[in-house]
């Protein structure tokens, strides 16, 4: 949607700062630069929503509100030329907005809430043990498609296409259901990272107050894949049964996805080196299995040219493999997990563990623009994450084009509403922010009342 269909673009209607002359009527040439970004921060970036989110209800009038809360949050800016400004903090919404507009950061990262204002950290650093320490931080997850390079054949590195993006969709579904059903979290925000992955912010009060040990425990709970260049089998499922969480992930998400989509989209059995990789995952210490795999291997190599059957070759071969393994696994103990192990290796989410384990890890803020792709880091609705298409996420240039069109129509405060960013901001507000702030308010009130009660009790003594 570049707005090129609009036939009413006079030069003087263009937004200030768009130096490069647009070739089409209202369209803005692709690209990413500080001038575009200035306009974006000035007119589209939802400063106010970000402030309300990061305040967690403490910006209210209730006596239980902690007015210093927002000011103790670390923000970090990456400016042009990779200049890094850490420990930025703001006292108010307007303070933050002013700073963002002035400095025009290429990237905004969000850090933890500290015990004191991060800007004054040096004054407290000498105080000893708890001079300057993080006290609260959302539980965050980072899933990156580059970590799947050994199982996707369509792209590699930072590239993403519609054949491999569903791996991210699966990650969202598996982790999201674990966070909600197993850990009981409710306020979860999924965000497109702008290029090759997704970020997750768990914002429940309980999640924000987890210590590092508890964070690491949750990350470990979700970890199945143990990447290591030296071992062929990267997923090992022990025991006689799968843990209920893994069993549920397998039966509700992974199996369907692997058999219904991944097999064909990545052509996992069409080429020798690809099916070799899968056969390698079958433990061949057991003689019976070694025989089976070599038999399959022989058959598949031979039928390479004559594979014009009605059924898709990948599905057919996977079926044969499963049947073979199933038949034998009844006789040989410890091989029953083999089919699941293959599916888990290919489809189970691979998390960047370090991001989740520590309170003071920074993570890019939603609604930033990715400098390389120009795309906005928009929220993803986990309930319809299948519909999310990274290739149609609005880019900075597109948004400015839409803005040029919109300028003539009406004036209002919420300029984003007229652009394709509108639905993302609306989702952020109504599905994430409102329920979150409601429960924050309840939490603040109830802890305030509890405190009152406590002081009353101690007075009556």
């Amino acid at each position, binding site marked *: 949607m570049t707005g090129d269909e609009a036939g009413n673009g006079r030069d003087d209607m263009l937004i200030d700062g768009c130096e490069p002359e647009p070739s089409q009527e209202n369209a803005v040439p692709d690209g990413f630069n500080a001038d575009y970004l200035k306009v974006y921060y000035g007119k589209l970036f939802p400063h106010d929503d970000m402030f309300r989110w990061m305040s967690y209800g403490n910006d209210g009038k209730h006596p239980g509100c902690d007015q210093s809360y927002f000011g103790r949050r670390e923000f970090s800016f990456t400016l042009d030329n990779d200049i890094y400004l850490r420990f930025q903090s703001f006292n108010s919404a307007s303070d933050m907005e002013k700073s963002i507009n002035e400095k025009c950061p290429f990237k905004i990262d969000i850090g933890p809430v500290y015990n004191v204002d991060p800007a004054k950290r040096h004054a407290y*650093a000498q105080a000893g*043990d708890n001079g300057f320490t993080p006290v609260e931080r959302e539980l965050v997850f980072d899933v990156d498609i580059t970590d799947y390079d050994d199982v996707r054949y369509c792209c590699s590195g930072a590239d993403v296409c519609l054949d491999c993006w569903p791996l991210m969709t699966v990650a969202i579904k598996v982790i999201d259901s674990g966070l909600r*059903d*197993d*850990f*009981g*979290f409710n306020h979860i925000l999924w965000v497109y990272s702008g290029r090759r992955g997704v970020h997750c912010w768990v914002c429940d009060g*309980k999640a924000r107050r*987890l210590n590092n*040990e*508890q964070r*690491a*425990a*949750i990350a*470990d*709970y979700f970890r199945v894949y143990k990447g290591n*260049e*030296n071992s062929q089998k990267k997923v090992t499922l*022990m*025991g*006689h*049964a*799968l*843990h*209920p*969480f*893994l*069993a549920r992930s397998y039966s509700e998400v992974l199996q369907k996805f692997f058999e219904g989509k991944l097999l064909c989209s990545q052509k996992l059995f069409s080429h020798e080196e690809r099916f070799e990789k899968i056969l390698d995952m079958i433990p061949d210490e057991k003689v019976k299995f070694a025989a089976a795999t070599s038999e399959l291997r022989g058959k598949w190599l031979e039928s390479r040219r004559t594979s014009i059957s009605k059924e898709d070759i990948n599905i057919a071969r996977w079926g044969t493999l499963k049947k073979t393994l199933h038949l034998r696994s009844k006789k040989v103990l410890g091989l029953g997990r083999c089919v699941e192990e293959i599916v888990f290796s290919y489809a189970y989410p691979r998390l960047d563990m370090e991001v989740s384990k520590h309170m003071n890890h920074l993570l890019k803020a939603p609604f930033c623009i990715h400098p390389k792709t120009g795309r906005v880091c928009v929220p993803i609705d986990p309930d319809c994450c299948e519909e999310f298409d990274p290739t149609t996420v609005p880019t900075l240039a597109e948004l400015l084009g839409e803005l040029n069109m919109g300028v003539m129509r009406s004036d209002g405060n919420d300029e984003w509403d007229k652009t394709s960013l509108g639905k993302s901001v609306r989702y952020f507000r109504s599905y994430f922010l409102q329920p979150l702030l409601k429960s924050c308010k309840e939490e603040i009130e109830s802890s305030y009342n509890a405190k009152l009660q406590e002081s009353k009790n101690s007075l009556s003594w």
Partner: protein
Amino acid sequence: MEIARSQRRTPAVADVVLGLPLYRSAPELQVRLEDFELFAIDRLRVLKGISDGLSRGKKPDEVETLVRDLLKSNMSHPQASEVINKDIISHFVLRLVYCRTEELRKWFLSMETTLFRYRFRLESSEVQRALMAEFDLPYKAVSNAEFENVKEKLGQVADSIGPKKKSMPNADTIFYKVPFEEVPELVAGRRVFLLKGYAYVAMNQVSSLVVTRFRSHLSKALVLTNRKWTSTIREREADRLTPIVESLSTSYLGPDYSQPREFAEISLKDIDQLAKSSFPLCMRHLFEKVKVVVIQSVLLLLHHKSIIKKNFPGVGLKLDDALAFWKAEFSRKIGAERFDKEYAYGIRHNYGKEGKRTDYTPYSCQKIISSTPGVGDHHGCPFRHFRSAR
């Protein structure tokens, strides 16, 4: 706790559940000055033994035996009734000794927690249950009705962690429903069933629950003790307990590098010679690799340098010399200017001249042994990580 030269002694059983004290408050009793020090040294032997055992990578079963043996040989007392008192006194003395710096607290906390964990395991299930009650854990056993609802899932978890034979929990197995935050170890290993933020902890897993409580309580107490120590006790006891307390932590843990250095400084020109004669094996290997590898690839280095760098201050190499060393090694590949720009900060940081300005102490054996060197890494403990030369 009062320290006296007299022999008067009152038993301190208030806080003890069948032989395993929880050390929640210092007992009201008098201790002879000799016992004060002797008991502490005995307990230190136990903790030190556990520490050694862990760093040798002993398995849980082996540690269990080790703990039993260590307790038997060090913590016994000729009078049976005094065993408990000795246990409690020695704990509180060491608490005083090990409250004084972050590093000491960390070590003590970790060792005492390990000791408690294994002692708890050695107890019978009756004592365990009594201990749980004593900790006042606000958890109720899962009711029968609720158990029926999740029975299948609990069975699945049991199957996924243990051998088939003793699985399938039945209504007799007691499960506790606790917030998952209380049992991070069990969550990390997927050894519990989780539902809406609650973990279903089986009776044989409760040690994790109790140990978490024990640990957090001790952790808080150590910080408080430290405050008391610095504000009053150290002054008041300057010519009686303070010397004992201050010497106890160093006498058994080898040289304390965090103290101001009085020993000789070395200079850059000696470092090649010293590396051969005096570096520990892991450092010597790393040092030699650094010199060779720099010529091949700077990239490979980025990782190890943090380890070898951190150890330079501890060796006694002065900051200027360290900068000169790294500059000489690096500039062969990347040029002096890039070195100044990209690496000098990191080295000054290690010497506490930048950033948070901490004077770093060298990594301990424990830390190096527990690291996991990846592909292309040269650090690690030679005795643990290096393959034997054939």
